[in-house]
């Protein structure tokens, strides 16, 4: 017993220290790469693991810690981080820091340096890494070997540790050779012009730190930062890339002020709410009716029906929605051919919305059927019998007794369903893609778009580039909507419980 204890203990300690070591290593790597938050997070994690598993004796935290660390990193932090991104201009071309952006602008503003004649070079591979280098002499008497990432001064034209390639070998490396840019001192860049010579280039833009401006030394044009994280000349010429910067409330004010964003957004918001309410009511009523009809003891085949009714739950949603989309195709689709109609499902706003509702109903009614059946079966028999003895009609006993009891048990599940319905991305994005698109709108908003699908399009499918900042601002709006409805629902439930 004692030996076993000891073994278990030492195993535990070894494991803890391996984890601590791994976390610390990760922390250091993140800090090295200047990912401050992640570095800090892993540092704290390693301390927590060390403290909780090796020093203190309390049991609950040992079980809760892994879950909490992961929940924090992959659920809470992204949510909070949305709050930060929403106040930045993070988007395509605005993702790096200002100093990186300016360095990148300067580097790409390369023009041939006419004062330096072409330099002869030979291609070589490093023996240890097999990586491609160029070796050359500049200025006379100084030998170099380098590629895009490294540059070394060497003693002779035939540096040790490198194998010089002959002409045909060099030719076979044409693609890799074309990508090489050797960064010399003074901002000079040497890049292969053909298989023998390097062309020297130098940046045409010069950055003045004190004035925070870029000057084109040839044309004399001056570029200054604008309020959206980009260098712009007086004539309005903008230099790419821009950088990420804080823009305050601008994402939110543009939602309100910019007509191109506001108009589609209001339509999307309205449809998000209407769609969720409609689908909850429809599918709850449908499920409830089915539960009442098929919760009939003398119906011999009710179990077969029940199995068939829950089939929609057993098919992966993504696939069934895609199948529905095919069936809804106008004219050639099965539905139009079956009913001999010519309905523009999916291409007309109204019909697309109806199609979305049909598919959502198909997806959700089995769940509603199951939970209402359960709730009805949970009603004590005596209550219903007592009502019957008192002479209540079937309808009255349903309305006055069954329904309130069912509603009371199901209210929390309905609130949860409502929150899900507000974010039913798959059913909408995969069926209609949010379309048909409103004419002249920012980011492709369409008649069946809900907030989450519109956000997705803004962030990852944008016409004018991916706008993470604006998308995050919409996520915040969505958070508020979903959270608000959930909290309202939970509070209503509490008061309901108080009354009953």
């Amino acid at each position, binding site marked *: 017993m004692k030996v076993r204890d000891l073994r278990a203990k030492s195993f535990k300690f070894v494991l803890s220290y391996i984890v601590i070591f791994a976390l610390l290593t990760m922390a250091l790597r993140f800090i090295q790469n200047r990912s401050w938050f992640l570095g800090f997070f892993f540092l704290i994690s390693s301390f927590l693991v060390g403290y909780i598993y090796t020093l203190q004796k*309390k049991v609950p935290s040992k079980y809760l810690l892994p879950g909490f660390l992961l929940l924090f990193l992959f659920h809470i932090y992204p949510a909070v981080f949305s709050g930060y991104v929403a106040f930045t201009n993070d988007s395509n071309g605005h993702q790096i820091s200002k100093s990186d952006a300016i360095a990148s602008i300067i580097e790409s503003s390369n023009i041939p340096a006419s004062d330096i004649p072409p330099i002869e070079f030979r291609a070589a591979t490093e023996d240890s890494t097999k990586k491609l280098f160029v070796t050359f002499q500049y200025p006379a008497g100084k030998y170099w070997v380098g590629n895009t990432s490294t540059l070394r001064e060497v003693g002779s034209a035939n540096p040790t540790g490198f194998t010089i390639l002959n002409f045909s070998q060099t030719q076979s490396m044409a693609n890799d050779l074309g990508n090489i840019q050797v960064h010399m001192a003074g901002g000079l860049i040497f890049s292969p012009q053909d298989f023998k010579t390097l062309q020297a280039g130098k940046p045409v833009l010069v950055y003045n730190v004190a004035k925070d401006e870029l000057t084109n030394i040839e044309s004399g044009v001056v570029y200054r930062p604008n309020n959206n994280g980009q260098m712009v000349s007086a004539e309005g010429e903008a230099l790419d890339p821009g950088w990420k910067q804080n823009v305050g409330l601008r994402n939110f004010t543009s939602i309100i002020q910019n007509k191109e964003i506001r108009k589609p957004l209001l339509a999307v918001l309205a449809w998000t709410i209407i769609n969720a309410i409609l689908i909850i009511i429809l599918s709850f009523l449908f499920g409830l009716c089915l539960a009442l*009809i098929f919760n009939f003891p003398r119906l011999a085949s009710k179990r077969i*029906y029940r199995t068939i009714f*829950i089939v929609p739950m057993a098919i992966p949603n993504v696939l*069934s929605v895609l199948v529905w989309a095919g069936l809804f195709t106008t004219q*050639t689709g099965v539905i139009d051919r079956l009913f001999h109609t010519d309905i523009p499902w999916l291409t007309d706003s109204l019909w697309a919305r109806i199609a979305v509702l049909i598919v959502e109903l198909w997806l959700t009614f089995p769940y509603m059927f199951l939970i209402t059946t359960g709730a009805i079966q949970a009603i004590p028999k005596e209550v219903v019998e007592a009502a019957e003895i008192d002479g209540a009609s079937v309808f009255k006993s349903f309305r006055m007794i069954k329904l309130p009891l069912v509603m009371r048990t199901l209210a929390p599940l309905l609130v949860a369903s409502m929150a899900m319905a507000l974010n039913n991305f798959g059913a909408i994005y995969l069926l209609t893609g949010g379309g048909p698109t409103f004419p002249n709108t920012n980011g492709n908003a369409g008649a069946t778009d809900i907030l989450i699908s519109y956000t997705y399009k803004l962030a*990852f499918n944008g016409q004018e580039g991916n706008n993470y900042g604006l998308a995050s601002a919409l996520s915040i709006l969505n958070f508020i909507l979903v959270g608000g409805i959930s909290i309202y629902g939970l509070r209503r439930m509490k008061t309901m419980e108080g009354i009953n």
Partner: protein
Amino acid sequence: MKIYTFPDAKRRNFWFKKILWRHVVGIFVAAFALFPLLWMASAAFDVTGQLSTQHLIPTHHGLSNFSTLFGNKEKPFLTWVRNSLVIAFSAAAMQIVIGAAAAYPLSRQKFRGRKVTLTMILIVQMFPQLLAATTLFLIINSFGKTFAILGLGHQLPLIFIFGGGALGVNTWMLKGFFDTIPTEIDEAATIDGASHFLIFSRIIVPLAAPVFVVTSLLSFIGILNEYLITSVILGLDGRNMTVAVGLQQFIYGQYAKNWGPFAAGALLATIPVFTLFIFLQRFLVSGLVSGSAKG
């Protein structure tokens, strides 16, 4: 017990009044419920592979759609299946382990902050990860700059995202089930000198096996079904995709051209999930219903 039987005429009358219309309704609803499944299955075996000429019973049936599907080198269906299985299995396993570990002290031990923890988990549940897809993308992007394998286009970060959200997904359900296991059992084990870990792994977990089956199945299906975060993190590169994302890319905007092979793939992907679901429906139904009855 003697069962009262109606005279024949009365019985028939009863059947017409109370049973017949239920069957009529039942058949209509069944047709609705099975509608896409039937057409999907029929399209999979229809060798013409055309949406516009498809009949419910295909006139020319064969397996050509399946061979077209497997023959497509740019859209490697089998790779997608493997990706889906790897991601869903690992993430579901992670969710269960983390959820069970968290549910154990919350159900079994009194400690300061227990109520706060439970409430916090409930609040986190209200804000689905889905909403933070944009920032998850940015975070995983910055992960990748330091550790390539944790970056965009890799499966590992996706597994951590799904597995890491576990506390908000399963903990309450598992805790509810652990609560129904009598505490006398672990008290007796404590007196016999069992450690908390032994009680958890040798007593609680085996006793809760049925609920693990249900939650892991639900997690597994949920992850297989995920489209948004999966597509954002893995990207739309042919070999990286899961079945859900891959088949969507395969069919989107090309219903006329790819309908047959798509249906074949969808059918293949549906069959295992469907079988598992129907096989375990008894557990699922009772799990959902008991959850609802408890409020």
